[in-house]
């Protein structure tokens, strides 16, 4: 048992837990942080893209020493069939700015750096320590945690749960329901190493410029999901993820899907001669607004993936994690200064503050999208095929006149989805997007 009493205990040393712990310690609170991995980042997986804005609000000068890979100057969005892709690319010199907007990162390295900042701010971090139970007083208020370090306990005014998507503690304590396999994605990813000049020539880059590719289409074999490829300094992160219940129904293994993506003619040359040094898998909470559990209660708050804070449409998660962590930390500091209790009524301030940020505004905006994407598999199979076929018809010069080509394209869409189907899909998407 740790005799000392803390102002706050943070469970987890990922982006959300680190943001919360740092914010509180900077303001003089006594914070204990518990991490089950051997080092922060050892259990964490992300693509990964770092969104500067969310981190700037916590550590404004992070660019000075954070392990950043490449700043992103080009975004490619692809719809793919088995032999082709149709892409929308946006590349801009404007992204070569003094303070770039997005970076690729390697999470294990980034998390170690963030954790060092957290400890420098005064947080007591215990690694290799799994929280096994939340401790309550007779009124049910959470007052501390039990760990697997000899069954040791620690006590605090408030416990902030940044335990990740597969967070057992909050779930088994009844703070939130079990994850629904329909609204959680399973993503697998590999790290492929190449000399930096090879990456730069393959992707038309100089210096630390980077490219990201987000892809959908027949690569997910009819399931709701997406693939990605991100350029790091001397490696490429390549991965693919689909909804868990789709994997179970489809009979496809995630690693076979990843293998097929790597062997796709549009991807294979980008990875040629690379050396794979790691294979990772992780869940992503993609249920959006309607999946957000209770976020606060007597003596506790939940942040990051554990609170389902992921914007699946824009592939954003780490920025929501850092922002929810920061706001949870700020709320606790504010209550502490006012000498207010960490009661459910007072901690409701956390939710009120979150409602005013992009986090809740974006999740609310897209609240109907997860259901739309899960219930409309044509978005992932049929439409990409129709788009790539249309592109081939359009660009192949074969003596057919252009009006006949146009008619062929329209006919393929009507045949593939019927006119009412096309109109219905457009209507459903517009309504869900609004």
């Amino acid at each position, binding site marked *: 048992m740790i005799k000392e009493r803390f102002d706050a205990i943070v469970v987890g040393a990922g982006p959300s837990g680190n943001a919360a712990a740092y914010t509180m310690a900077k303001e003089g609170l006594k914070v204990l942080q518990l991490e*089950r*991995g*051997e080092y922060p*980042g*050892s*259990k*964490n*997986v*992300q693509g*990964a893209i770092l969104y500067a804005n969310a981190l700037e609000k916590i550590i404004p000068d992070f660019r000075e020493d954070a392990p950043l890979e490449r700043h992103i100057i080009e975004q490619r969005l692809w719809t793919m069939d*088995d032999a082709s892709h149709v892409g929308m690319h946006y590349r801009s010199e404007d992204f070569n700015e003094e303070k770039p907007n997005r970076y690729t990162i*390697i*999470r*294990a*390295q980034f*998390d170690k750096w963030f954790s060092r900042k957290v400890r420098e701010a005064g947080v007591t971090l215990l*690694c*290799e*320590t*799994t929280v096994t139970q939340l401790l309550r007083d007779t009124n049910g208020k959470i007052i501390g945690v039990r*760990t*697997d*370090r000899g069954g040791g306990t620690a006590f605090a005014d408030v416990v902030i749960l940044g335990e990740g*998507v*597969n967070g*057992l503690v909050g779930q088994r304590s009844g703070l939130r329901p*079990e*994850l*629904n*396999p329909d609204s959680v994605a*399973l993503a*697998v990813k*590999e790290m492929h190493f190449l000399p930096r000049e090879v990456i730069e020539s393959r992707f038309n880059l100089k210096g630390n410029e980077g490219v990201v590719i987000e892809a959908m289409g*027949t690569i997910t*074999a*009819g399931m709701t999901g997406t693939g990605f490829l991100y350029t790091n300094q001397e*490696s490429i992160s390549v991965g693919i993820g689909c909804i*868990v*219940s789709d*994997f*179970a129904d*489809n*009979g*496809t*293994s*995630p*690693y*076979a*899907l990843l*293998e*097929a993506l790597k*062997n796709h003619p549009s991807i294979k040359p980008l990875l040629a001669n690379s050396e*794979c*040094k*790691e*294979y*990772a*898998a*992780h*869940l992503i909470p993609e249920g959006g607004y309607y999946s957000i559990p209770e976020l606060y209660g007597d003596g506790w708050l939940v942040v990051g993936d554990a609170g389902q804070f992921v914007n699946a449409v824009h592939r954003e998660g780490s920025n929501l994690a850092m922002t929810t962590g920061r706001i949870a930390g700020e709320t606790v500091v504010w209550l502490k200064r006012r000498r207010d209790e960490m009661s459910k009524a007072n901690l409701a301030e956390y939710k009120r503050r979150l409602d005013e940020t992009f986090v809740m505004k974006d999740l609310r905006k897209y609240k109907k999208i997860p259901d739309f994407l899960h219930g409309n598999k044509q978005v992932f199979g049929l439409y990409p095929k129709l788009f790539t076929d249309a592109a081939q018809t359009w660009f192949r010069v074969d003596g057919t006149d252009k009006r006949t080509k146009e008619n062929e394209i329209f006919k393929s869409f009507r045949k593939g989805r019927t006119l009412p189907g096309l109109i219905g899909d457009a209507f459903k998407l517009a309504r869900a997007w609004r």
Partner: protein
Amino acid sequence: MMAMAEMGAPAIKVEEKLFQNRYQVDAGRPHIKIRPHETPSKALLSLTYTCPAGCYSLNDKGQVEITADGCVECGTCRIVTAKTREIEWNYPRGGFGVLYKFG
């Protein structure tokens, strides 16, 4: 639905992928256990292909078995069988399990 073979993917052994990873195996203390069963449910059976680390396999009696050494702790098996309660899932003890170098 397209089968993987049609997509031109070569047969892949997940063991070769896991070989790249670092683990601290907690010998003799598996963090996932399958409850004894005669016939696996559809959910439990699906783990033989949904598990990204290929930890689950069928034995010759048609029961599902697990070797958790290569587990990457994603939690897929836990949520897939949450309703049927056929597996018991805990985190490995602090410090044990997968150790991502890159994540």
